[in-house]
């Protein structure tokens, strides 16, 4: 398929990649997921990738509905298992670009095991996590990324659990591309997605997103605009942060590309085994 010129505007982007007849989305007013999904498609579009050689896997939850609006091959899988479905696809068809789009409950709670093992294998999957620190679809329960002390429908007296720093988790597990962006910094997020889509190996992108309907309301963070401002004021680019001391950094989260290195990619390594085994067999079978 010949690469098209990048979409001139949002209407063209929507027309090109989204199932217009399935809009409007089920996301609440002010939700960040739609902005993030559009940023992802913008990155995909800029790179001129072949959508028919790209497959997506979704889990369950608000982020799990991204694929429902996309004109791609999309598995809408079981809760937390996106990366395991994606692993089967990638190993069977290594030439395909495989993208898993998940939420924080999906990827870090029920799917946490798959997340660390996919990172450890360095399998060529682009893993996107929309982290809005809550289970939005079921009404605002606390997730593994909800802060200690935060309120949630299942933490009416305050959350006593410590949150995961998902980027640290994935980096520790061996992820070779680890990045964090926010909905506020949507241009930077688009660039991060571009790099993730070009990375050979496991590419993890955490998107700090806002859920004004539940997390924001329970924690008195205001509406979407206030929550976006919070993203602006509580993050710092990893390059800028390198020049600052711990005290100056305060509680700001690092955004940008935190890890970007090369290691052998799993599906490619597996195909070497196939080649060797078949050579030993003298081409039989």
């Amino acid at each position, binding site marked *: 398929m010949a690469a098209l010129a990048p979409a001139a505007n949002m209407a063209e982007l929507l027309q090109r990649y989204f199932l217009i007849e399935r809009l409007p989305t089920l996301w609440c007013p002010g939700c960040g997921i739609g902005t993030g999904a559009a940023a992802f498609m913008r990155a995909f579009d800029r790179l001129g990738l072949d959508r028919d050689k790209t497959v997506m896997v979704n889990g369950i939850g608000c982020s799990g509905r991204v694929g429902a609006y996309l004109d791609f*091959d999309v598995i809408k899988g*079981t809760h937390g*298992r996106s990366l*395991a*479905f994606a692993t*089967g696809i990638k190993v069977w068809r290594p030439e395909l670009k495989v993208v898993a789009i998940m939420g924080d409950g999906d990827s870090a709670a029920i799917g946490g095991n798959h997340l660390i093992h996919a990172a450890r294998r360095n399998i060529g999957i682009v893993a996107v996590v929309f982290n809005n620190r809550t289970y939005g679809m079921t009404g605002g329960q606390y997730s593994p990324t909800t802060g200690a002390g935060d309120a949630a429908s299942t933490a009416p007296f305050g959350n006593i659990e410590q949150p995961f720093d998902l980027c640290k988790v994935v980096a520790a597990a061996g992820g070779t591309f680890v990045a964090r962006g926010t909905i506020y910094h949507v241009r930077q997020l688009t660039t991060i997605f571009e790099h993730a889509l070009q990375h050979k190996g496991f590419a993890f992108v955490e998107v700090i997103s806002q859920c004004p309907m539940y997390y924001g309301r329970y924690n008195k963070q205001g509406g979407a605009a206030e929550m976006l401002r919070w993203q602006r004021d509580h993050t710092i680019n990893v390059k800028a942060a390198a020049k600052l001391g711990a005290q100056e950094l305060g509680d700001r989260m690092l955004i940008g590309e935190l890890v970007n290195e090369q290691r052998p990619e799993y599906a490619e390594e597996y195909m070497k085994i*196939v080649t060797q085994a078949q050579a030993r067999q003298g081409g039989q079978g």
Partner: protein
Amino acid sequence: MAIQRRTLFKDRVTELRRGRQARGSRRKQGGMAVTGGASRRRLMQGNEAIVEGAIAAGVRFYAGYPISPATEIIELMSKRLPEVGGRCLQMEDEMAAMAAVIGAAVAGAKAMTASSGPGISLKQENVGFAVMVEIPCLIVNVMRGGPSTGLPTLPAQMDVMQARWGVHGDHPTIALAPWSVRECFDLTVRAVNLSERFRTPVYLLSDATLAHLREMVTLPAPGELELVERPRPSGNKRDYVPYRPGPNLVPPMADFGEGYRWHPDSNVHDEYGFPAATRPEVADSLVRRLCDKVNLYADEIVQVEERHLDDAEVAVFAYGSVARAAAQAVADARAEGKRVGLLRPLTLWPFPDQAVARVAERVKCIVVAEMNLGQLVHEVKRASEGRCRVVSVNRIDGLMMEPREVEARLQEVL
């Protein structure tokens, strides 16, 4: 009891040693016997026959997790599949293994997994997913005693109802039960074929006895096997309607990555794969079709073996490794002039209602022999509709059912 245990232990040690020797000799052969074609006659164990059957049936993707007594399957697959251009993954857990199988199958592979009770329990969510979005795949359950971790390396048939109803929600089930090493091969081929034809997961229910039983088998040559491929779409890709049923109610299935752009969605969905939870007529027709596409063709799925039933007064109903003891008991009783016969289903699900009904018409009693506390006996009672007496003989202690146990029950009812 103590003596019995010691003897059992000694037997198992001997068996393990023999197994090790056999594995050693297989290494020397380099696994050439099957693909090489020089000798198709081989001594092999049930788990190995499943591996060779799957490869012969076209399975090229395996994902699993180590668990006794199924582990040899993933070990052998890890060697055999790359040799034939396939892939074998050891995943981080059983749920992931089932999901990876579905992923590969959606991308066009004939794919399978194998496990035992505890692992099969973990896989259920994604077995249900495969049922709902109609993904063909093979699931081998090498049954061991339960519940929970139960009897890790000893045989049982306690999962036959789990195979039927382990997945939540209304759904059809296809499950086959071999009784010999050769049948492990044959029914694996058949299970893969059925899964492709009906676009649904299919169970092969083996057990710890068959898994490690070694028998001499002559494998069929690749050309002798009839292989089935899932229905695939033809025509314009933009006109593809992923869940519009074809003939026999099965919709054609496009491989991912070929430009069809479809959404396997496990929510109730319409013909386009769009979620349709608020459209009652769509929910109704989808689940009915899922069940009908299998159940209306039960005649073509069900296989039974009948022995000496023409003049039988009493029939033994037995499946899997227990049927070996039952067959011996029947042969011994007939040698004594007793009019007994054997009904052995090779298909457990859909249940062989008609075969049971036919037998129930003729005999005064059916003895159901199972290595559980009575699971399929209820199905036999249902299918016999009161035409004859139905009684059980059961064993759940991890030891094999013996012919004399079946014979004793036969004596009681004759």
